[in-house]
């Protein structure tokens, strides 16, 4: 019924990694499954490369490089969290290519991670993509159950 919005009515957030899209509720970590940090979705990566999901800037690259937040030009605050509980790796297997404050364009390579080593260390590499300022949007529509390439739309936001 409400499916006939023009494409431009929505702000589109690209997949930061290539892989399979998954609903938040299926993430094996209550912080994300209960959307405690905001609404979003997750990508089960097939490649250890993280690209900027939007034009904007790096609001924060965690010291441990396992998570990165983007301040999008459209106003969205986006958290990309590579793997679950991966804060415990203390930076191992993550190679950032940006620093906090850097400007980025959608599709810029921002970070690489060694997917196999992270899995070997016993971690799930599923990558939640979260809109931290969920309350600033009237609608957040996740794309789930599909196969995406980095840059393909995974979240649609409406102010």
């Amino acid at each position, binding site marked *: 019924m409400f499916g006939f919005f023009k494409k431009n009515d929505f702000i589109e957030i690209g997949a930061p990694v290539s892989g399979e899209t998954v609903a938040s509720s299926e993430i094996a970590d209550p912080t994300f499954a209960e959307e405690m*940090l905001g609404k979003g979705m997750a990508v089960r990566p097939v490649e250890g490369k993280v690209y900027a999901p939007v034009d904007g800037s790096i609001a924060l690259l965690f*010291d*441990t490089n396992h*998570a990165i937040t983007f301040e999008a030009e459209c106003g969205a605050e986006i958290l990309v969290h590579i793997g679950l509980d991966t804060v415990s790796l203390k930076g191992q297997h993550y190679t950032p290519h940006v620093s906090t404050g850097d400007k980025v364009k959608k599709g810029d390579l921002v970070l690489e991670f060694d997917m196999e080593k992270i899995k070997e260390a016993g971690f799930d590499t599923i990558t939640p993509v979260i809109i931290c300022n969920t309350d600033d949007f009237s609608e957040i529509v996740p794309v789930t159950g599909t196969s995406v390439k980095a840059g393909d739309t995974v979240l649609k936001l409406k102010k």
Partner: protein
Amino acid sequence: MKSFKYVVKDELGIHARPAGQIVKEAKNFESAITVACGAKKTVLSKGVMGVMMLGVKQGAEVEVSAEGADEDAAIEAMQAFFESNL
């Protein structure tokens, strides 16, 4: 206004999950609750980004303040949260 100071003991500091938990806890109260660390400060009603951006590490001292009608209860709950989780 009520406040307390706390030195973070958790070896991982305040990363994504605790940031979410702190903001969730603060939603139970009307009072404006702020967390400050060094020169940085954030109001919890503004969400988790501000908390993550404080970059609080193990050994860092934070000051949590609450101001509003239920500030006594709010500061008590925040103090209990920090002491049992961080």
